[in-house]
């Protein structure tokens, strides 16, 4: 075995990583070679010297560390003792929370927009809106009709407000309303409830009409069945 190889093995041996198969050859070489023997001795002494002269920490190290840690926590996390627990540094949790908050925000904006509905409607579109209303059963225009006109949601009620008009039937129902003041909202709510009452009354009237028509029909049938008085 050459000395360079033996010294490489000696380094491995020092770290306890020499393969068992190589141990015999190495020991044989070291026994015969004074250079490698000295090399091994030097390595062992170097390790001992490094170990014996390990520097010692200042006595107040723990105290200074404590102080610095407190200061760092105060600066970075506002003094939270366990920043990863108390401020939710977990990135996944943060994303989940953000996603939930964003979704809720979007839903709130959409709900608000739907609640207020589009307001800017030209009279020409009224028939279409009325047609849609009959199917939707709502007091607002479908969104598409407003988008088609480039309208926006939540506009302020303009002068000549529909609320000054008599609240009856299609004229009111055909309008999409929105307002920006509390009074507007109150008015909208009041009109909506009035609209609901009218709808109920309409349904009741329609039912009555149907009943009366049925009664009339049956009367006619009976009338046909009646024996015709001979003049």
């Amino acid at each position: 075995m050459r000395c360079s190889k033996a010294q490489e093995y000696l380094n491995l041996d020092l770290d306890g990583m020499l393969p068992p198969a190589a141990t015999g050859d190495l020991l044989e070489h070291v026994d015969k070679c004074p250079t490698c023997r000295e090399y091994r001795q030097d390595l062992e002494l170097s390790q001992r010297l490094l170990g014996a002269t390990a520097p010692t920490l200042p006595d107040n190290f723990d105290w200074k560390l404590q102080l610095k840690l407190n200061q760092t926590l105060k600066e970075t996390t506002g003094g939270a003792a366990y920043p990863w627990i108390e401020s939710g540094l977990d990135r996944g949790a943060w994303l989940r929370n953000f996603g939930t908050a964003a979704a809720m925000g979007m839903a709130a904006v959409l709900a608000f927009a739907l609640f207020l509905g589009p307001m800017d409607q030209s009279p020409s579109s009224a028939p279409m809106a009325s047609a849609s209303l009959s199917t939707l059963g709502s007091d607002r225009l479908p969104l598409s009709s407003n988008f088609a006109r480039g309208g926006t949601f939540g506009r302020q009620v303009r002068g000549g407000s529909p609320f000054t008009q008599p609240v009856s039937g299609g004229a009111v129902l055909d309008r999409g309303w929105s307002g920006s003041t509390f009074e507007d909202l109150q008015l909208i709510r009041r009109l909506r409830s009035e609209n609901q009452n009218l709808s109920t009354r309409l349904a009741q009237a329609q039912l009555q009409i149907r009943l009366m028509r049925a009664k009339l029909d049956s009367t006619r049938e009976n009338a046909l069945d009646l024996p015709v008085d001979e003049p």
Partner: protein
Amino acid sequence: MNLSRDDHFNVSPAAARVDLCDVRDEDLIVQVQNGQRKAYDELVSRYKGRLFSFILRMVKDADLAEELTQETLIRVYIHAAKYREIAKFSTWIFTIATNLVRNKMRQKSRRPWTISLNPAPDDDEVPVDPADTRADTSAEVEREELAALINEATSRIPEKYRIPFLLREVDQLSYEEIQQVTGLKLGTVRSRINRARNRFRLLIKPLLKNESLLAELEQIEARAAEDDDNDRH
């Protein structure tokens, strides 16, 4: 919240430490993640000396070494939640320390107005001068003086060899751990450690021949063993 120690101990710190002395580092950091401050204190007590020893031999400035040791331990606390047991805790903490040391050394090397008083790289293999230690052969060489000589010799090993060398010799990390800390290949780690050992051996060669120094070394080791026994009891 103020982190005074008393707030986090139901029992005395010493008693708490006794309970934790058999717990693995990896389990301790999990306890830290769960908000147990005494587990962090145990980790600090286990690693502060090793870290300081490693860092001081890298930067050769006691104040800076203390500062970087604190910084490492603070980062361990602040980023405790990021630790996953895919690597040993010792690997993680020494990776933090090594990165801090490298950054600091890079910053130092960038300053154009500072002049290094270290010997030129060509002088790497010139042995450290033990003249002061041998001036009075009758007197024992103080441990601090010996330590200063060893530190001087260590600082003359080029940085790329010094890091794996110190991680192995001072901190007893395995080759695989050093590989993870440094990002080097296993063969490179091995060869760099061997080169550093050779260089270090040549640098302290005069010390190794000095009988009084060797006697002092034995006394230091004996005192350290006594201290260990006292600590255990």
